[in-house]
């Protein structure tokens, strides 16, 4: 599966939600058309309500579009599948399973656990939690839990990795460490990674392309390729220019910017 090349296409995708109490309709995402390919790291960045999470959940297949079409290699996305691994903001580790069993969950669900125990062991090694193998999630710190959640979604070697603000709940230092860890895995496997974040720095630091999104209605307002070699320097002039550019597009630039 490792070398599977994928092409993810969004054609005119819109998603609206009916509000529960009033008769109004929220337009979470309006007519997005874009193509993403293996080897890309796409950052979706924007203020809350811009539809970035909706877009990710559409790709995951957790929800279906109101209009438009999402396809992977020409095949329409209808429901979640293990070849589109997803990591959530909350680790959502199953509290009744040990670290090992959480990581093995996906293999077990597909009846592929037998003969693949070494894969699980390998994942435990990747995140350095050998001593916590038999522990339950309640005993883990936030950073450890997110690491387990990361490898849990990677165990199938999914050609598409979806990250829904995976580092949002972590402290600044754990967060920076995890950014590098995720990048390392992505560079090794060359999957297509799509990450939602509200942190512009994180979007630029990790992404090969940043889709800037805005709210009311939710839409993509810019598609910016980040042309910087990895590992990136958060303090470099180019980096800062990208940041100013993106913040400008979101009307958040500092004093002097007019629009």
């Amino acid at each position, binding site marked *: 599966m490792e070398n599977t090349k994928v092409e993810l296409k969004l054609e005119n995708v819109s998603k609206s939600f009916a509000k529960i109490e009033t008769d109004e309709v929220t337009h979470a995402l309006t007519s997005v058309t874009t193509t993403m390919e293996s080897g890309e790291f796409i950052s979706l960045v924007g203020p809350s309500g811009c539809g970035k999470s909706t877009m990710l959940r559409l790709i*995951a297949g957790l929800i279906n579009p109101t209009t438009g079409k999402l396809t992977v290699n020409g095949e329409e996305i209808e429901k979640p*599948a293990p070849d*589109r*691994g997803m990591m959530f903001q909350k680790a*959502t580790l*199953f509290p009744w399973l040990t670290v090992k069993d959480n990581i093995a969950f996906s293999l*077990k669900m597909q009846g592929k656990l037998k003969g693949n125990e070494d894969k699980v062991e390998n994942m435990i090694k990747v995140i350095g939690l050998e001593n916590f193998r038999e522990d*339950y999630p*309640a005993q883990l710190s936030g950073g450890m839990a997110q690491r387990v959640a990361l490898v*849990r979604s990677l165990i199938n070697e999914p050609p598409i990795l979806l990250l829904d603000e995976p580092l949002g709940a972590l402290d600044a230092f754990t967060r920076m460490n995890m950014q590098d860890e995720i990048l390392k895995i992505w560079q090794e496997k060359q999957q297509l990674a799509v990450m939602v974040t509200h942190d512009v720095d994180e979007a630029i630091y990790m992404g090969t392309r940043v889709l800037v999104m805005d709210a009311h209605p939710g839409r993509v307002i810019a598609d910016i390729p980040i042309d910087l070699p990895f590992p990136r320097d958060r303090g470099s002039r180019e980096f800062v220019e990208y940041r100013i550019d993106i913040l400008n597009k979101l009307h958040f630039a500092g004093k002097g910017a007019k629009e």
Partner: protein
Amino acid sequence: MANATDTKDLQNLTRKQLLELERKKKTKLQLWADLIIFFLPFLGGLVAVLEYKLIPDNSRNANPFVYEYFLYILMAAYAVYSVVSMITLNKGNRDMIDKQRYRAPLFTALFLLFAGYDYLTLKTGILTQPFVPCLNFIANAFWRERETILECTIHTLYLLFLGYFIGCILGLITGITCGYSKRCRYWVDPIIKFLGPIPTSTWIPIIMVVASSLFGGAVFIIALGSWFATTVASMTGIAHVDKDYFEAARTLGATNRQLVFQVAIPHAMPNIFAGLTQAMSSSCTAIMIAEMLGVKSGLGWYMNWSKSWAAYDSMFAALFVICIIFTVVTKSLEAVKRHMLRWQIGVEK
């Protein structure tokens, strides 16, 4: 101890060694107090024996040695317990001896309670004989009636577990299905709302009229109570599974069936166990009422039957047996629960 604090050793410190290291040193006085408290139950036992042997009886007493031996057996049991604790302490495990030290005052109080009860009944008759029989009478009755009591105990346990398991299994099935399927809840909810508030014992007179066998009727009543408790608990448990877990499981390739068995049910386990515990307590109540009112065997029946023969000593003996078996049953259920829910340690603060 000072050597163990070397930084080199500190790296390989086990949890137990750490606790040992950080324990507050007890003063000499505290150590002596611990030692005395540890042996206090023997003193309590001695008081009970002396009270029994030295104070003259106020009323007739038969086979006086039975109660005396009973006290000796209890003291011997405590002695065995102490020896085992000390052996484990010698092997470096403090847990057992600490627990025994913690419980020692209670054991002492138990002996003193025996002495006090004996004083109020046999020695002074403040509690009138034979209506509140002295412990020696109860112990004698237990020994005399051991075969009948054993038979009744087996019958009670059989009835209890038969009804309990039937009720719980059906309750789990309805509860889980209803927790998961809205259509099923639509039909079952009214039944629960309507029948729920009625205590199961209300059914007993009706069952006595309608049922062809009282045994079957009793099973039905016990099962009904258990069914109700397990259904409600597992239904709430399943209906309140965090939807994030379902989403995570779906992206990991779980099928609908797997969502039920691998996510919803394990997640609802704490609720389910709460239901099982409640079912057990309702079953215990129901079985006693059933046996006292209709069923012609079992400990509840035996108590009632003894009463009608004015055999108050047998009645009390059966009461103690009931006490013991219900405690054992509840404790076993608790142990199963603790084992199954060990992942919860640290979840509940």
